[in-house]
């Protein structure tokens, strides 16, 4: 008998709990006193998580505030579930700025001003490229915690030397090296773009080419304002260049393999202990993963190095197309405010970059803090870039960013069908209200 009543009571409590949870809201009023512990959420595991943990440890040492880092590779599903349950982490480092804007518009994020921080002063250390990402309708919702150049092509210096290749300055030179590798019986490239969670490697390829061929203005019109449709001739031209490298002839295992393996697998195919290919295009983080996880015996400068993605159209010079992760707050209390301020400081940046895992967008972070030549070079590339474009597919709203990767998977598989595929994607973009 008692058991049954206990069960009934449990159900009633559950029902009441659900009802109150549904009706809850974020209160909104002012910065509250902290609880002494901060939960912070992002998608890094392994070496990337260890690097970030060093920053948090120093923060705890300085302030006495405990931190609890939570991680999920499936970032979006987990954060969405927790938001729906009204139980978000106190802070999160968000990999997709398009998502930051979505959350800010839904009034889920706490602005720097509400946290009691001076947004103007914090932003002095960051260039417009970065502050643009955190500023939504004139309000600043966080800081860009880490940055990446994605204009980095990874190669093996000793292999280049053996074959007498020079660092290519133009796209044609890169294609020439590709051909020569093939002629010598080697596989020039590897890539991994399996499923929904690796298709971003293809969108990165496309963005590098489009930015350098059609130019920064069209790039912005394509990805940000939607003035250039996705079935525009400029998009088709970029796809044509892309499949000059991403085809069955030049990538390890052919396109089927590209669509069947992950990004990390593709690093192993070039820089692993049993390599199958010579070059890999992806962002600055490749170096950290290659040396830190795939093959610790790699020597930077002889076994692994990168060159800048070569220019295509001499009239449309672009230095860097890259990405960044935004630290944002979901709970308004003094602890969170302190951690946000700390993450924006050069001290935190220097600890973080010293691990070799990231480059910092913070201009006050000293170059001497970087541990090796590879990350130093990436940081320099980011800092000295006269023109910087942000990862376009990460800026596309809603489902379009993800579907752009799927589109490119289909395009590299069936380049002949690209007109039809691009028409369909443009129709989807229009029905989602983009660019109209």
């Amino acid at each position: 008998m008692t058991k049954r009543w206990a069960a009934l009571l449990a159900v009633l409590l559950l029902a009441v709990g659900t009802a109150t949870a549904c009706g809850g809201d974020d209160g909104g009023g002012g910065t509250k006193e902290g609880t002494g512990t901060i939960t912070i959420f992002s998608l890094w595991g392994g070496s990337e998580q260890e690097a970030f943990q060093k920053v948090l440890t120093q923060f705890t040492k300085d302030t006495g505030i405990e931190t609890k880092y939570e991680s999920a590779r499936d970032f979006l599903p987990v954060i969405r579930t927790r938001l729906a349950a009204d139980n978000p982490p106190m802070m999160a480092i968000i990999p997709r700025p398009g998502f930051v804007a979505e959350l800010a518009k839904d009034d889920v994020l706490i602005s720097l001003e509400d946290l009691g921080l001076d947004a103007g002063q914090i932003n002095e250390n960051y260039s417009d490229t970065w502050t643009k990402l955190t500023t939504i309708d004139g309000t600043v919702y966080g800081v860009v915690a880490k940055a990446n150049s994605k204009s980095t092509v990874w190669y093996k210096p000793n292999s280049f030397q053996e074959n007498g290749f020079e660092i290519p300055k133009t796209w044609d030179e890169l294609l020439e090296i590709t051909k020569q590798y093939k002629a010598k019986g080697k596989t020039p490239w590897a890539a991994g773009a399996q499923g929904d969670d690796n298709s971003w490697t293809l969108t990165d390829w496309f963005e590098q080419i489009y930015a350098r061929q059609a130019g920064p203005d069209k790039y912005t019109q394509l990805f940000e304002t939607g003035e250039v449709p996705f079935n525009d001739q400029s998009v088709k031209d970029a796809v044509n260049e892309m499949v000059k490298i991403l085809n069955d002839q030049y990538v390890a295992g052919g396109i089927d393999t590209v669509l069947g393996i992950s990004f990390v697998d593709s690093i192993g195919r070039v820089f692993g202990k049993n390599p199958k290919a010579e070059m890999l295009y992806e962002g600055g983080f490749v170096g950290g993963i290659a040396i830190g996880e795939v093959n610790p015996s790699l020597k930077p400068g002889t076994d692994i190095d990168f060159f800048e993605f070569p220019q295509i159209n001499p009239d449309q010079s672009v230095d860097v197309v890259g990405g960044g992760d935004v630290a944002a707050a979901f709970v308004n209390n003094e602890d969170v405010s302190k951690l946000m301020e700390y993450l924006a400081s050069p001290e935190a940046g220097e600890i973080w970059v010293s691990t070799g895992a990231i480059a910092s967008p913070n201009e006050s972070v000293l170059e001497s803090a970087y541990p090796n030549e590879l990350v130093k070079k990436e940081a320099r590339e980011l800092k000295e870039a006269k023109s910087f474009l942000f990862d376009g597919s990460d800026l596309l709203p809603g489902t379009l960013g993800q579907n752009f990767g799927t589109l490119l998977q289909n395009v590299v598989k069936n380049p002949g069908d690209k007109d039809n595929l691009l028409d369909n994607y443009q129709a989807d973009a229009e029905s989602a209200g983009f660019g109209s």
Partner: protein
Amino acid sequence: MSSTAVPGPVGKPRGRRLPAIFRRPGWQGLLFILPAVVLLGALVAYPLVWTIVYSFGDTNSRLDIVSWVGFDNYERLFTRDRVFLNRDSFPPEGALVNNLKWALLYTTISLALGLLIAVLAARVRYESIVKAIIFVPMAIAATAVAIIWKFVYEPDPDIGAANAVLHGAFNLDPIVFIGRADTVNYAIIFAYVWASTGFAMVVLSAALKGIPEEILEAARTDGANEWHIFRRIQFPLLSLPMAVVTVWLTINVIKLFDVIYVLSRGGPGNSSEVIATQMFDELFQNGEGGYAAAIAVVMLLLIIPLMIWNISRFRSERVVT
């Protein structure tokens, strides 16, 4: 039962009169099922109703409904969503069509293999060993099944067993089973058949053992050969358990998610997407709560006929399994 039936004088004065419902026979029964009703109400009916309500709305990133859109979500799903149903191509493609492919292939192959093994194994001495081996994959979680087959299908012949066979025995180039739109569905179906055949086999084998030996003996005396015995006696007597297994397998198909999520994530492109994986993507990747709810309602509508069939079977009390 009328109140006049109550005898007049009683020794002790009665307490308060009970409400009418408690004077009917069987009210104790109602009390007994009450906890179950409350639990099911809170955990099944309540979410079910809300899912239907959600499917007519549009949600924000907190999954609160921000506007009502009527049947828009459903219209979009069936007319404008090429991932769900692409009617421009011939034959049509999309998650719905993939589920149909699964329902046809996965169900028939699992059932046929299960039946074959059950019938054949009954004729050998080491039956229990055979059955144990076939049944083992049933004990493996679906995600683990998917990871095992991810290795089997690995394009590198040094790692992937499937390509090692193709390469070693026939000297063929490796096939990237999971990376090709024309092989991915069949590859995953095969993996899941491997995991489900054991169930079909065990159920059918048990039913087979339930057929009285006298019937088979009588048939043999009348001159029937083994094929006739299978075709004319065992097969008809197995029709009900086979129907049960078919329903179970079909329900498996409609709720299919984990093997695909782990093996291909619905790719390459959208070529192996099914209803449940698309619902997951719409809800958790894209934050489209209302649209995902509409997909869930479609799944519910697909499952209802099977449920009705199952319940009517219980009513007829011809439960065999």
